[in-house]
């Protein structure tokens, strides 16, 4: 095989096959005889739940792992990649979910990074510029080559990553969840780019778990489940329900019946709130929102628009610089997490492994994290272990957390089960206010469905829920009202039942509700 050839000398990839790929990690069979095939000019979607083995499979294709069994074939010739360099030389490029860009270098400098310069140790940006402009022209990738990365929006940074890969002669591009960081409008632009690349005879492998995107963009869809190939077929007449069932292995509900619950009283009131991040930059600006008992208010927004800081200030983990937070009529603006708990508030944190659990504590110890100093868990500082065990066991049963027993360290549970336990802990207290930040991120569809049902059930018990999520489908499926945040400011609150994805997308891109309303006229569903 042509491993030693120069990048531009590598033969064009007409067909890539992964045959019977098997990869074992101690105690886990991550890939079990997985097959995959992609031809030039095709977009292949690789679909699967978390832990289905998608990333493992792609890391083997990109030379990061060596397969324990099976072969990778390019144009019917077996190849072996010992490192990403081998893969790049063979014409394979990968766009990671987290971009590999240096933020205080320019676009051109980032593209040149790691390339061999024609002028020895000196930079030769003119050559890079010329070739970059050619690539931009060819695929209509619009980006300013002299801009610094930190000046670029996420969508633009993604384009830089694509240019980088194409510059290095990538014939086949692996895209790891590329749409997770984009607004709906950006996703559409991105799909145009993908189609252009496919038209130019590139092969694309698109990893995703968003079913509608997969159906919209791909020529073929391959589904993995539990490390095995379930299917690979042409994208004709496939429905979301079919795909979801293949991913999960059983029928899945994608739409929820929502009973109407009466709104009961103001529970959470946020007034003119300003919050800074760790570097004293204002990330939430004059944000006001009211949440009533018996409703779920979704907070939509592209990742990194102040949701994190807002959630932390609402749960007492971060002190606001200005404004007011009222929980059940009590001023908790500067209160800590303890007071928020006492006031009947629960919080499902965004980073469950960092903030939500103590990994080296067992299930019971994690279950009592917030209430360990209260009865019936302890009295006069001494724990009442029978009570703790009973309560935890009941919650574990109630919330179908899969665990052999309560003494298991929580780090041994899967992400979905950890999240269910956190949910159990936060909901068993029957909170009057619930802040749920990314409650189903990294959780498989089965567990997500369960978590969604629980949140809806809690809504009918009268809990006021603020659902912060980057998953627009989730927000739309659960919310009564949707608030949109952009650069820390509230773009407006709309009726979830009537608003369209396009309208939400405009607001997520920074256009206030009233301007969107002007553009849309009567078709827009604003709540006055």
């Amino acid at each position, binding site marked *: 095989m042509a491993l030693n050839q120069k990048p531009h000398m590598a033969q064009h990839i007409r067909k890539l096959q992964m045959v019977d790929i098997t990869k074992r*990690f101690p105690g886990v069979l991550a890939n079990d005889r997985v097959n995959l095939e992609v031809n030039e000019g095709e977009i292949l979607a690789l679909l699967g739940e978390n832990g289905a083995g998608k990333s493992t499979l792609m890391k083997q294709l990109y030379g990061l792992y060596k397969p324990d069994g099976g072969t990778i074939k390019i144009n019917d010739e077996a190849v072996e990649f010992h490192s990403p360099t081998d893969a790049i030389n063979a014409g394979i490029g990968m766009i990671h979910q987290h971009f590999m860009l240096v933020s205080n270098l320019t676009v051109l400098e980032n593209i040149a990074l790691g390339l061999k310069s024609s002028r020895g140790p000196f930079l030769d940006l003119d050559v890079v510029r010329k070739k970059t402009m050619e690539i931009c022209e060819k695929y209509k990738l619009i980006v300013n080559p002299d801009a610094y990365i930190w000046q670029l929006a996420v969508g633009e940074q993604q384009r830089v990553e694509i240019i980088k890969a194409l510059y290095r002669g990538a014939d086949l591009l692996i895209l790891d969840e590329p749409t997770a960081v984009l607004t709906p409008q950006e996703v559409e632009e991105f799909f145009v780019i993908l189609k252009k690349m496919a038209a130019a005879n590139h092969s694309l492998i698109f990893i995703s778990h968003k079913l509608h995107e997969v159906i919209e963009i791909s020529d073929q869809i391959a589904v993995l489940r539990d490390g095995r190939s379930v299917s690979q077929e042409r994208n004709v007449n496939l429905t979301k329900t079919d795909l979801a069932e293949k991913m999960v292995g059983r029928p899945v509900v994608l739409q929820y019946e929502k009973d109407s619950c009466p709104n009961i009283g103001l529970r959470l009131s946020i007034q003119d709130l300003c919050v800074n991040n760790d570097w004293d930059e204002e990330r939430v600006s004059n944000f006001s929102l009211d949440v009533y008992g018996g409703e779920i208010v979704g907070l939509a927004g592209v990742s990194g628009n102040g949701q994190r800081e807002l959630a932390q200030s609402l749960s007492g983990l971060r002190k606001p610089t200005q404004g007011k937070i009222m929980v059940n009529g009590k001023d908790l603006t500067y209160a800590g997490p303890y007071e928020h708990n006492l006031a009947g508030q629960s919080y499902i944190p965004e980073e469950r492994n960092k903030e939500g659990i103590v990994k080296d*504590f067992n299930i019971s110890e994690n279950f009592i*994290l917030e209430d360990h100093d209260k009865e019936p868990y302890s009295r006069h500082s001494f*724990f009442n272990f029978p009570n703790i065990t009973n309560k935890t066991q009941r919650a574990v049963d109630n919330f179908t957390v899969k665990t*052999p027993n309560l003494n298991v*360290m929580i*780090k*041994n549970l899967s992400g979905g089960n950890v999240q269910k336990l956190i949910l159990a802990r936060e909901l068993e207290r029957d909170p009057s206010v619930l802040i749920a930040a990314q409650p189903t991120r990294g959780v498989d569809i089965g567990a997500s469905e369960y978590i969604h049902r629980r949140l809806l059930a809690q809504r009918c018990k009268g809990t006021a829920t603020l659902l912060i999520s980057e998953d627009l489908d989730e927000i739309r499926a659960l919310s009564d009202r949707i608030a949109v945040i952009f650069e820390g400011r509230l773009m407006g609150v709309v009726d979830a039942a009537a608003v369209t994805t396009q309208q939400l997308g405009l607001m997520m891109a920074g256009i206030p509700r009233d301007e969107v309303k002007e553009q849309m006229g009567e078709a827009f569903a604003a709540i006055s």
Partner: protein
Amino acid sequence: MSIKAQRFINSIIDVIIPLLATVIALILGAFMLIAFGKNPAEAYAALISGAFGSSRALIQTTLKATPLLLVGIGICIAFRGGVTNIGGEGQIVVGALSSAAVALYVPIESRWVLIPLCFLAAIVAGGIWGGIPGILKARLGVNEILTTVMMNSIAVYLSNYLLRGPMIDPREIEMGTRASQTALLPENTFLTRLAPPTQLNTGSLLAVLLAVVVYIMMWKTTVGYRIRAVGLNPDASRYGGINVPVYQALAITLAGSLAGLAGAVEVLGVQHRVFENISASYGFNGIVAALFGNLHPLGTIPASFLFGGLMVGGNKLQRTVQVNSAFVDTLLGLVVLIVVAAKIVSVNRSKRRAKNA
């Protein structure tokens, strides 16, 4: 494999690793002995008989193990709380000085009042010595490793000043020898001997009792729960409503108090006076004993005994095969090094376990 069987095997491995480390250190030591032209078999026979071979040896080992245990259970609290206490030496010194000061200068006759008062003074002094780095860490984020080491120096120079000046034995001045030590403590402050005429005293019982108390505190009460939570994941603890800096400071303060108590037990139980270098490296070796015991207060009991044995047996080894005293220190140093290395190995092991799960 079932989770239970897995856990059982893992806990066996946790016990085996420090023992294995000791054996490896002894093997390395054997090569050094051969290089010195000594017979390693003879040397190690002396080591073992010196440590555990007779009732006298066992008593000596117990006496050495006592301060190691008291310091060690304090280290368990501090390390479990995510705070590194390198200040055991200084905490022992101030504990010893303050208990001796009470014993010498407080005019109370009843030993039932005076001895607890001595202990209390040591606990408070040690607590202050640990608490200052604790507060500096909690309030200002100052690295406690640096501050505890600095507190050691302060304690040593304070002790030098006191033992050469205000607290010096008046008889030393009369005789003009001016050895820097305090006067012999009044007899009513001596801890009760368990097997006269040996020095074995109630201090050892107190240490074992406290190990059990610390175990109960750490695993059966909310205070210990909070300390462990803070040590394992400060972010999640904050989220759970625990005041993280307070419990970090508390952990190292308790560690300081226990080390201070070790100083008092050494003075009231064994030495009956304070002299320079009273801490005799117990403050550092206690850390090793705690690591040996897997940072578990009950595990620290046999670990201290083992390590106390190495210290006592080392002396006999030195006398028997006539090696430089530095050899014994080197041997102990090797054990420490390998135990710490083994600790890292087993931490990595459990990380790998967690990752693969």
